């Protein structure tokens, strides 16, 4: 079985409160997997645990068959796991170009000029702001910068946490197209997305999280009418 990433009964707790319990999921090579669920379900915690920012209390995380649970974030990043954290993962006091140069600090292979150029091409706005301090960018521009950085890092596994937050609709549409083309290049993805429709359209598989547990899993078509999914979003807003 060729799962790129595999979570095996992963549990996480913050100061006595259980945030994740027994979460098992798999991201097969070249697949786009979406995590769905309401706010507070534990999606962000899942990503943070995978990338090493949070230490698991139990269970295992395997990347290409090798356990990475408990490794420090930079070691995990060096394997090609690129995480765009929720809420603008940028270095606010660095300039835009410096942010992009940091994309690949741990990996010699990535982050060439060409990569950076390609990333900037994707978001032309950034090209005009290369020497501006990232903290003074508009909210959406900051989000674009975080994404551009991730794309420039030549990821093996891309983990995106609510990337469409604060982006204008036209950019969003373009972004989803980009993600699709990135996926077609064989890059695996694990993403969290509030626009359920968009997520369902993008993903090969979806997992539905509720209160730190996986309550449903399947292909988008099956899930579109899933009760678990509807319930997870409190029956609102899902079409």
């Amino acid at each position, binding site marked *: 079985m060729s799962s790129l990433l595999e979570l095996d*009964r992963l*549990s996480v707790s913050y*100061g*006595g409160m259980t945030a994740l*319990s*027994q979460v098992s999921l798999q991201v097969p090579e070249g697949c786009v997997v979406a995590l769905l669920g309401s706010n507070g379900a534990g999606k962000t915690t899942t990503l943070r645990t995978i*990338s*090493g*920012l949070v230490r698991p*209390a*139990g*269970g295992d995380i395997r990347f290409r068959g090798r356990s990475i649970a408990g490794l*420090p*974030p*930079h070691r995990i*990043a*060096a394997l090609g796991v*690129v*995480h765009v*954290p929720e809420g603008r*993962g*940028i*270095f*606010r*006091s*660095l300039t835009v170009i*410096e942010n992009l*140069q*940091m*994309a*690949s*600090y*741990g*990996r010699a292979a990535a982050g060439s000029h060409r990569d950076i150029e390609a990333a900037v091409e994707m978001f032309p706005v950034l090209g005009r702001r290369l020497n501006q301090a990232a*903290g003074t960018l508009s909210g959406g521009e900051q989000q674009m910068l975080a994404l551009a*950085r991730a794309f420039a*890092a030549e990821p093996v596994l891309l983990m995106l946490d609510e990337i469409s937050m604060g982006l204008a609709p036209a950019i969003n549409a373009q972004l989803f197209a980009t993600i699709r083309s990135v996926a077609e290049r064989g890059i695996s993805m694990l993403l969290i997305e509030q626009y359920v429709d968009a997520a369902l359209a993008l993903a090969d598989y979806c997992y539905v999280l509720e209160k730190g547990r996986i309550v449903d899993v399947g292909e988008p078509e099956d899930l579109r009418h899933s009760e678990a999914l509807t319930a997870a979003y409190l029956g609102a807003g899902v079409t």
Partner: protein
Amino acid sequence: MLPFIILGLSAGAAYALASIGIVLTYKTTGIFNFAYAGVAMFCAYVFWQLRDRWHLTQWLALPLLLLVVAPLLGVILESLFRLLAATTVEVQIVVSLGLLAFFTTFVTIIWGGNPRLLTSIFPSGKFSPAHDVYVTGDQAGTFLLALAMAGGLYVVLNRTRLGTATRAVVDNRDLAGLVGANANAVGQSAWIISTIFAAMAGVMLSTEEGLVTYVLPALVFFSFAPAVLGRLVNLPLAFVGAIGLGLLDSILAKYNSSGTLAKIETSIPYLALFLLLVAYGRRLTEVRSSLRATGGSRVVVHTGWRNLGWGVAAIIIAVAVVPHAFGASTIQAFAQAMAYAVVALTLVVLTGWTGQISIAQMSFAGIGAFVAAHIAGTNGGLFPLAVLVGIAVAVPVSLVIGIPSLRLSGLFLALATMAFALLMDKLVFASNSITGGLTGLNLTAAKIGPLSFASPTAQFYLCLIALSLAGLGAFWLRQGPIGRRLQMVRDSPNATVTLGASLTATKLAVFAACSAVAAIGGALLAVTQATVVPSNFSFDTSLELLLVVVVGGRSLISGAVIAGGFDLVQLLPLPAAVDKYLPLGIAFSVVAIAREPDGLGRVMVRQLSYALDVLYRRARRPASPPLRRTAPRLVRQKAANRA
């Protein structure tokens, strides 16, 4: 003129080494390092030991220092400051200050206090670029080395990936990990580079000034102004500023100034520091932008009445025990400690609650003390009037300082108040006519109406009542809308103003009120000390006060009381070299071990509450454990196995 320019250039180069070091450390580690002078001094002594005591050749001693000793020290420093990555500025300032004190003490213990000479590492001899003008090898060497080092650093920081990475780690440690930078390793590199630089600077500066424990710190304080000229991040500007300062110094010296002019001359760096800070204003930003996001302020949730209960209990115990159990000098010490606690309380309100770091509270106390001594020195009956006049002087002074500088935040406000305190030392407290010089002024028999405070017991009650009232006032402030207003200002200035509250008015009111109370505290200190000397109100004492308040608990009223209590260590029979640093060190360790950013006060309150809980409902339900602890590994493992 030319000789003075040459002198100025080489003095400027010495400043430059210091100010570039400050900028380097701040930019790459996020720490404004007061201990920089300590590190530099320590390294200079090590060099002296290697070369002049053990007679190693210079070309062995220097590499040994720069490539072995300094990097080792850098690694140690990194592991210390790593623990502080997420804490607020005042804690970092205090720790780096504590470190400065540690190095000073350490050096004194090992090498003794006597000044020593350190001969230059450059060949002696001089050359003459023009008629009657000589440049020594040392002068030329210092200047060229400073220039080369500054240039090298500039390249490392601005042209290499490591330079970008150090800033990225300072900015947002978690994210740095996510992009693949090993934050610890990058931090170590930064500290190693900055320590090597400090070592080099220490050696250069000590050959200029001699190995004396108090000279280097002063020199480094001088170099804050050029560092701020570069907004703490711009190396070339800091370099230019330092050279300019050196030139200014020596040109003023040319006009052979004396008297008032000389006094002004030595305070130029501090004046420049203050003016630069004010001129830059909001354009000064701190390098740790992620600080707010990680919840810089932890303080809240006033548990209210129970804490008041502790206060009342403490007062009752104090009244019941102290005047009866101890001798006169001890009682007096208690009185003095409580007077300090009154001043410390103002720091809690300012720093802990409003987020304004002040390193000038003892200067305001000094205003109160000297006004009291002047007015009530010969006629004790005028003491109440003296207190009022003290307030009437302190408040306008606080406004003059506050109006331009309260726009500054965090570190920069701390530096501005520091400049103010140093200026007070140089220009006001040093003046014989104001403070009576080294011997000070007398205030022997203060009276309020018929009550005389000549006896220690009377002083004890006076200070106890004052402290209780101040504490109660602060408590009342904290509970109500004003407490919320202070927290607003601390947490989000933008939200504060757009909700309709005035930032400036709030900050200024708090600053003025705190300086008024500090002046009262100063008057009380004058009463308990009988002789008022300037050194008791110098900048150093303000620093010390900040230190003990942070250790005691910067956001707690009890923290201020504990801070005052540290004054009681004078009663302990301790060797002079360690005197108060030993107890402080122990207290600091306790706070660090309990991982309690709110200091000893919180630890104590928590332990006491725990004890009470246990007493109350021992049998009924288990009380929460007193110290925050993660579950022991075994328990965690079991839980995991069960799952």
